[in-house]
């Protein structure tokens, strides 16, 4: 699905991301690492939002910086910068849906499936997205990703901004999604419990490098906890 060759990005001679070779296939893949490890930078590189010094990121064998096909099947939410602040959530959902040829009816149908996740505070709230709380903005962003029915989903620290119930709902939703059709779901998080629960593969980043590539097993949580122990 996603292939990375010799990806290098540095700011002021300080390496931000340095990945010689990485293959990402289907499944839920977790990305962990302390602040400044380069998780968000890596996501932005994948989405062609940052120019790499040396860059070769391939989605389905096509270079993301030279070809825009990836936009058809990739959905991402990194921060509020992905939302259009002066639209109502509904307007935003319809807009994103239309970009993927989904009719309003279609979008409404999907949104009704997310009613529990929204907890009554998103739809018909009579607010623009900019007036929603940060957590609710995150829900809008995640929902917009799901509407697209993508093959690749990239979520940056989705658990950090959600309340406990929503976190558990999100885990369930991701698992269902993954079971329904083969897709690559990339999730970064600081929450080791959640990450080991939901992910089949976990990448550990440190100073821009991927130092561990783990297949999740019963020992993974202890292994990660050992790494992060100060």
């Amino acid at each position, binding site marked *: 699905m996603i292939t990375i060759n010799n990806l290098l990005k540095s700011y002021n001679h300080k390496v931000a991301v340095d990945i010689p070779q990485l293959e990402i296939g289907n499944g839920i893949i977790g990305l962990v690492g302390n602040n400044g490890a380069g998780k968000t930078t890596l996501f*932005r590189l994948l*989405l*062609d*939002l*940052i*120019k790499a010094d040396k860059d070769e990121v391939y989605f389905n064998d096509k270079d993301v910086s030279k070809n*825009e096909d990836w*936009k*058809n099947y*990739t959905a*991402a939410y*990194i*921060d*509020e*910068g*992905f*939302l*259009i*602040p*002066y*639209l*109502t959530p*509904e*307007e935003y959902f*319809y*807009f*994103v849906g*239309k*970009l*993927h040829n989904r009719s309003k009816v279609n979008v409404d149908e999907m949104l009704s499936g997310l009613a529990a996740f929204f907890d009554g505070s998103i739809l018909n709230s*009579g*607010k*623009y997205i*900019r*007036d929603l709380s940060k957590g609710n903005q995150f829900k809008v962003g995640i929902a917009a990703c799901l509407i*697209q029915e993508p093959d690749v989903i990239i979520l940056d620290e989705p658990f950090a901004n959600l309340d406990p119930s929503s976190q558990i709902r999100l885990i369930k939703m991701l698992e269902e999604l993954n079971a329904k059709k083969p897709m690559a779901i990339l999730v970064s998080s600081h929450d080791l419990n959640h990450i080991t629960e939901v992910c089949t593969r976990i990448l550990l980043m440190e100073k821009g490098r991927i130092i561990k590539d783990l297949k999740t097993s019963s020992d993974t949580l202890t292994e990660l906890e050992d790494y992060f122990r100060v």
Partner: protein
Amino acid sequence: MIYTLLQHQWKSFWRSRNAGRNVAIQIIIGFFVLYLIVAAIFLGFSFDSILSDAFPHQDVIPVFMGFILYYFAFDMIMRFIMQELPTLAVQPYLTQNIKRNQLVSFLNVRSLFSIFIFLPLFLFLPFITTTVSAKYGALVSLSLVVTIFSLVIFNHFMALFIKRKTILNQWWLIGFFLLILLVVAADYFKIFSFRDISAAVFMKVIKIPALCLVFIALAIASWYNNNIFLRKNFYLENLEKSTGKKKSTDFSWLQRFGTYGDLISIDIKLIQRNKRPRSLFLLSVIFLFYGFIFFKPENIKAGNLGILLVGSIFITGMFMVSFGQFLFAWQSSHFDGMMAANIQVKTYIKSKMMLLIFFSSIAFLLSLLYGFVSVKLIPILIASWLFNIGVHSILTGFIGTRNYKGLDLSKRSSFNYQGTGAAQWLYSLIILVAGAIIYLPFALLINKWAGIAAIGIAGIISLLMQDWWIDKITVQFKKQKYKMLDGFREN
């Protein structure tokens, strides 16, 4: 207490994150204000000679009195556009032991630190204390000074009141502009004469100096009204955004354009729902009237086509310039999202071009009304419109990819230089130079009408090449994209 709050404001100014830039802007504004004051004093002292030159065989005092109301009408509009609402982040103070009345008075006192308060005094005092005083004595001139000062205060608090009202309810804004338009039209078509009214009112004050008490009462009433309003809507200052239930809208007439239509409707909502673009567009409406400056009968009669052309390009391109100067930067807060969304870069750029053409065409249709001034203007307006939709729009696209400065949509527009860089200043220059390069050779070698024709034909040719141009802009955009993303994110 008010003093402490003023101190906090002072600190918030100096300790803000971009204090350096703020200071630089304040210095520039300071020079501007100084210039205004000097000009006002100079004008104030020369009223006597100017008026007696312009209106010989007339008593200058009634003539002068005739202009006062004009000034205050103009003052009202200027305040409305430029004056900032004094705001205080009230939240941290609400839970402290400070009376609400004190906070309201603070907002009122703070608002008085404004050039608009002092300018009229510099302008009117010299004439009143010299010419009027010489003829009618000190008491009369004192009464006039008090009257003028009261009017300043009245205007001041009235403008703040109306402005705050417009934040709550858009209709006040439309009503305000309609009222102004009606008054201007009535005066222009001589339904009633502002000048006569003004002269009559103020000559009456000269006759009966005690009438100044009426104006004092007006000023106090306006202050009181503002006070009551503020006390009732205290939370408005920082919670203005959450008033009223927001409705979803879709522009069904845009649906037929597919993704282009969707992108355009988002841009239209951007203008409708954000302070800065909205006020900028309202300003551009005023620029439509610039025609009365450019299209003077003497220019038309003398065949000064160059000036008429500059005027036409300006008027038919005004909306385009307003939007185009920040073409991509308008979306700086969510540029990441736009770039990661399922929108091909070419589609994105083409939607912007369509929008620019749409804006220019609206301005063009409105500007056709100048045909009533002179039919000669119509071919010039058509040529300018073609130039704008053909050449101007493409240049705007290229320049837009060179702008890396983001901006905050919620900040007001006048005196707001956030997101402005060399690119904006260069922008108008490039458009004018492009027009001159096309116009001048033909105008000088053949004749002026050939120059106008060249402008129109250049527009048509460029418009026919639009697809090719858009490809070029797309290539440029893809190269510049990372720099733009980086710059916009910093905001």
